[in-house]
């Protein structure tokens, strides 16, 4: 998006919501995470570190709240009257929800984060000036700020370790915001191959790093536009709609719904692209 294009079509960019004026034609990347399958093993988080050149900041900086994990397992404790408190452990994998009406996008003073035609919430590092307004406005708190110049000053990737960096992903410098990209480098590669062959990306052709690493296949990822894709089927089966406003229609029924699908903070009208499937078993442990 060039600056001239951005200024001319400002209202259009701000209308990239799942409202009827701009439906997706080719791709709308979306995810669904089955919490009943999730065992909280953190493999997704580790895979994300490896794929996206994330800096391991160390215990001290982690305690200062400067961690850089794009994918994290959030823990919650539900201790109401259980025999063993551990039984109340609940957890949820959390990363950028790629909201359709993303609160972070509207507040960026330089337009460094905006919506792509594939329904991703993009973050352009070399445009970011580090105001951190986006992070302040993110209801999911999934944006991470580079407080230090990790590649050079903190010895995050000493000597040979630089060989493990992914060349398709920028190594971010000091003072920029970063977040989950749905592994956009993999998406671009898959789209490129598909386009050379004159087709769209097949379902299952592209995997995100977290999905690939998940031992229980709790994460599925795909194109919501294609009705036969696994993700689209899951969304349809759970009657979760991308463009649903305050709550899904099924949840407004009398007595609630038996279906497990939900999106986090639906009532904020951010229209997230990630659907979670509620846990069926009572406790994780």
């Amino acid at each position, binding site marked *: *998006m*060039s600056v*001239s*294009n951005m200024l001319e079509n400002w209202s259009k960019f701000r209308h990239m919501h799942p409202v009827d004026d701009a439906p997706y034609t*080719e791709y709308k990347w979306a995810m669904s995470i089955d919490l009943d399958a999730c065992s909280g093993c953190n493999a997704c988080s580790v895979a994300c570190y490896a794929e996206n050149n994330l800096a391991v900041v160390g215990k001290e900086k982690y305690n200062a709240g400067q961690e850089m994990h794009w994918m994290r397992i959030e823990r919650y404790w539900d201790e109401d009257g259980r025999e063993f408190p551990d039984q109340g452990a609940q957890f949820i994998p959390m990363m950028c929800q790629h909201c359709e009406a993303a609160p972070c996008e509207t507040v960026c003073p330089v337009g460094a984060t*905006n919506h*792509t*035609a594939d329904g*991703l919430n*993009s973050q*352009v*590092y*070399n*445009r970011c000036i580090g105001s951190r307004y986006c992070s302040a406005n993110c209801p999911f708190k999934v944006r991470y700020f580079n407080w230090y110049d990790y590649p050079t000053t903190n010895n995050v990737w000493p000597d040979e370790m630089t060989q493990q960096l992914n060349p*398709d*992903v*920028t*190594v971010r410098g000091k003072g920029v915001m970063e977040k989950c*990209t749905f592994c*956009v*480098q993999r998406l*671009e590669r898959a789209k*490129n191959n598909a*386009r*050379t062959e*004159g087709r*769209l990306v097949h379902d299952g052709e592209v995997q995100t790093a977290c999905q690939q690493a998940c031992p229980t296949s709790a994460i599925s990822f795909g194109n919501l536009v294609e009705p036969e894709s696994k993700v689209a089927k899951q969304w349809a089966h759970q009657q979760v709609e991308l463009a649903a406003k305050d709550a899904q229609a099924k949840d407004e029924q009398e007595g609630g719904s038996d279906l497990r699908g939900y999106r986090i903070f639906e009532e904020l009208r951010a229209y997230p692209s990630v659907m979670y499937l509620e846990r069926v078993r009572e406790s994780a442990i």
Partner: protein
Amino acid sequence: MHRFLSLFILLVGLFANAASHAADAPPSITTADDLGPVVEQPIEFPHNRHAGNRDPADAADPSVPAKGGMEINCMYCHTYARRSMVSGIPPLRKCIGCHQNLPSVRDTPRIQKLFEYWDAKKAIPWKKVHDLPDFVRFNHERHIQRFIFTQGKPVQEACGYCHGDIKTMTVARRQKALSMGWCVSCHEKDHPVDAAATKTTTHGPNDCWQCHK
């Protein structure tokens, strides 16, 4: 006298100020005519002899050394351009593959140097001429597929959009700015939509994440 002196001091001060500012400014990446720096290569590879246009006088007698080029397709050597992000620098064996059968030029200094590398079993340390920043993803395949295979543009014209008229150079030198504004100036244009396109837009991708990573 005082007035002249003060004017003189003022002028000197202004110049000194301007000069120090000029010294602080980072060296310009691009020159006025967008020419890149001259890159010294280990072998002065003559692109003009390989890819240049044939001289009409050459065809008559094969025993006389040719003066013009041989009109070799760019993708004969830069073979990955049509199927990969990067176009690729040909391996040494590609050079040798032809040149071991070309005794007429075997004793020229550049070819001797080429065979020195071959005998020493060493790759030629070519230097990069068209170097994009690390945060940019440029995909050769997409451009080649679109302009050459879908729209049938001549190879040298399509490559020349970004690389200039390589067939007239010996060692390649950057001819275009390769800056974001320069890329966008082409992406903003309306190009004819090809039959295989799934998109209805006529311009190139205009989305940050298409090129920035």
